[in-house]
């Protein structure tokens, strides 16, 4: 263990903005993924690591409002961006409509894919307020779930869609 070991190079300290807070990332290797930094350095375990190569969607977060798999984004690349994780969606104790709908519809089982799905559904409904059945299923096909068989998740998404639609109509 030496300070000048070839593998010890390239570490730096930088700042990220996560869920509206400035966070110091100290002496980090520049190759660390955003997922690794969120989980291992910033104490934000909501985004999950289930494949580490962008296949399962469990690590979904927003970077400047864009839905990404945080395992495939370098944390250092998010320096000037606003990162929002599942922990940053709810306003205090009040759940978002998507979170509440997952709870009401019974769209949760083991829950490991749930944070990523909740983030992805926010993204879908913010971009497209009135998605059809197939659009919903396509949009969240990047989020694998092994427990629920997706049925109640679809019900949860459609409930939020209908509820938002009713609210926006005069």
């Amino acid at each position: 263990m030496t300070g000048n070991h070839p593998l010890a190079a390239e570490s730096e300290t930088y700042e990220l903005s996560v869920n509206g807070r400035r966070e110091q990332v100290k002496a980090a290797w520049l190759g660390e993924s955003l997922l690794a930094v969120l989980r291992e350095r910033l104490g934000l375990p909501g985004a999950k690591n289930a494949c580490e190569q962008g296949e399962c969607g469990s690590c979904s977060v927003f970077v400047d409002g864009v839905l990404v798999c945080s395992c495939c984004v370098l944390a250092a690349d998010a320096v000037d961006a606003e990162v929002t994780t599942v922990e940053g969606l709810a306003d205090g104790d009040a759940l978002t409509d998507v979170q509440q709908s997952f709870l009401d519809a019974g769209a949760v089982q083991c829950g490991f894919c749930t944070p990523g799905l909740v983030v992805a559904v926010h993204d879908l409904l913010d971009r497209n307020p009135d998605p059809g059945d197939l659009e919903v299923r396509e949009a969240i096909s990047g989020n694998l779930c092994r427990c629920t068989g997706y049925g109640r998740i679809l019900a949860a998404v459609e409930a939020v869609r209908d509820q938002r639609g009713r609210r926006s109509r005069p």
Partner: protein
Amino acid sequence: MRPTAVGTPVDRADARSKVTGTACYTVDVVLPDLAHAVVVQSTVPTGRIVRIDAAAAERAPGVLGVLSHANTPSLAEVPTFPQGPAGQRRPPLQDDTVNFDGEHLAVVVADTLHHAAQAAALIDVAYDREEAVTTLEAGDELPPSGIFGEAPDSVRGDPEAALARAEVRLDATYTTPTEHHHPLEPGATVAAWDGGRLTLYDSTQWVSGVRDAVAMTLGMATDQVRVVSPFVGGAFGSKAMVWPHVVLAALAARHVGRPVKLVLSRAQMFTSLGYRSPTVQRLSLGARQDGTLTAIVHAVTQQTSVFEEFVAGAGYISRSLYACPNVAVRHRLVRVNAPTPTVMRAPGEAVGSFALESALDELAAQSGVDPVALRLRNFAEDEPQEGLAWSSNALRECYQVGAERFGWERRTTEPRSMREGRHLVGWGMASATYGVHSEAAAARVRICADGRILVTSGTQDLGTGTYTTMVQVAADALGVPVERVTAALGDTDLPPAPHSGGSQTAASVGPAVWSAALDACSKVLALAEQGDSYAEILTRHGIEFVEGRGDARPGASASRFAMRSFGAHFAEVQVDPELGEVRLTRFCGVFGAGRILNPKTARSQMIGGIVGGTGMALTERTVTDRRLGRVVSPNLSGYAVPTHADIPWIDVCFIDEHDPHVNALGVKGIGEVAIVGVAAAIANAVHHATGRRIRDLPITPQTLL
């Protein structure tokens, strides 16, 4: 007490923590001074380690220690299930032999996960490679010594003579591939030593199994090991038994003198937590012209590892699903340089039903009998193998209700006779069955001074809803609203409960919670005087709460009744005739599974099981390179689990079934019956759509072109 919570769609008790990302899974556990371990695995399927050079890894930044067979203490073997809790008897890092590609050879521990992973890549292993058996077809068949205490072979009547005399005969071979559970949370353990005491946070279906296995292999007293597992990110059998990485985490933590977290990678999940063995199943049916079965011979070949035996009884379903006087079942094993297989959702039945229920469909086509009518004709009034009466059996209602909901009577008989645009449409169906299991379990129910109720049991919630259903049971026993009840589970410090497998948790732990609640009630009554409030009772007796204890064990019903869940699956597929692509477009599953504690959580669990079966049918297969003995593309692209776009709306229905014999709550268990028969229903629908009988799973475009 009239149930008001049980049987109602109560919201999940743990949903809030899961939708906000605050539920703490094993992979999320953080302890002061936590170090990280990364496992290094073999890259040859068999041979000896000539050299394992860890010098570069030991010098790498942040590294705290490296374990290999060169410096790992001697570990005791732990028997495999059901004699013991291990998934693999052979302990890790004990000698220089390699038995399969992907076997744990070393563990690197460092201050950060990143440093550990970096250093793990620097471990240099040289092998003396030997000749490997890498496929089921390449090895010799051996009879297994037993299958969970049952004989591998059995014969009733005279199947050979009945086959020879049969008016209609069918003889076909079906195959299923290696399948992996792939729960979203990988296998993970956090180990922390405090002097001679060990605490393990583990993603497991069996906290007390982990405690017992680790204590045994390390030569410790079981009361020196505590295992904690409040949330499990899915399991499906992969975490039912205790696998070597768990003890590696404990050894690593002791080696470096710090708490250690060990999380398997997705690639490592292909060789570290077992898998569903591939099968080759030869099925011979004899029947009368009207479809009445006269003989079934079900011969199964499966694989196990070269160093130990595991076999799930895929053929047993053929003994008990239908009335048939002459039935032979045979199981054989081939030793392959692969990990030891294990249980996976409905072990045995899930694959056995593919062969049996496909063959029934072939018999229906051959004898010109409708597939539902054929099954009704062969309905077993009593359990056919032992001759016991059913405790309850709603299979006929399942067929009837499913056929109505699906619109089965509109099915045209001929294959390729239904179309939607340019797509071929096919309708298929299959039966489902799974045994009712339960084991001894204990629970406590505490009535706190403020009137809140706390239920505790050392069982597990794998995502199945145990937190919620046990709260419902206690609420009804005490006559209080569910909002006043909470549950604490997944800890060996709590009253002992069995492993969460075999769909047995609700049937085992539910009655214990029920009796603990009643015990708490009677204790309060014994302490009470006329006109007392609960607070006054506690004050007068100088106590802070009253707690009841419940112990439940399987009753004597098992010797008098045959107890199984049943179901019927109806599938519609559309097949693209030019591309060979199969899309599931409609599905209906109907189940007779005793009392359903919570229709909201149960419905979702059944849909999940049906989608697991859809994966079996259409997408899931682990491919091993024959030459290398290595899994090809060990990731979630190489192993395709169904995505949301693959899955249509699925109709699930429960038959209202009251079984007074299974247990005090009338619960049969639901997790596994959902997947049984699904692959056959879909394969039968593909046959109806295309006229092609696909006997090898999964049914990919290549198989249809």
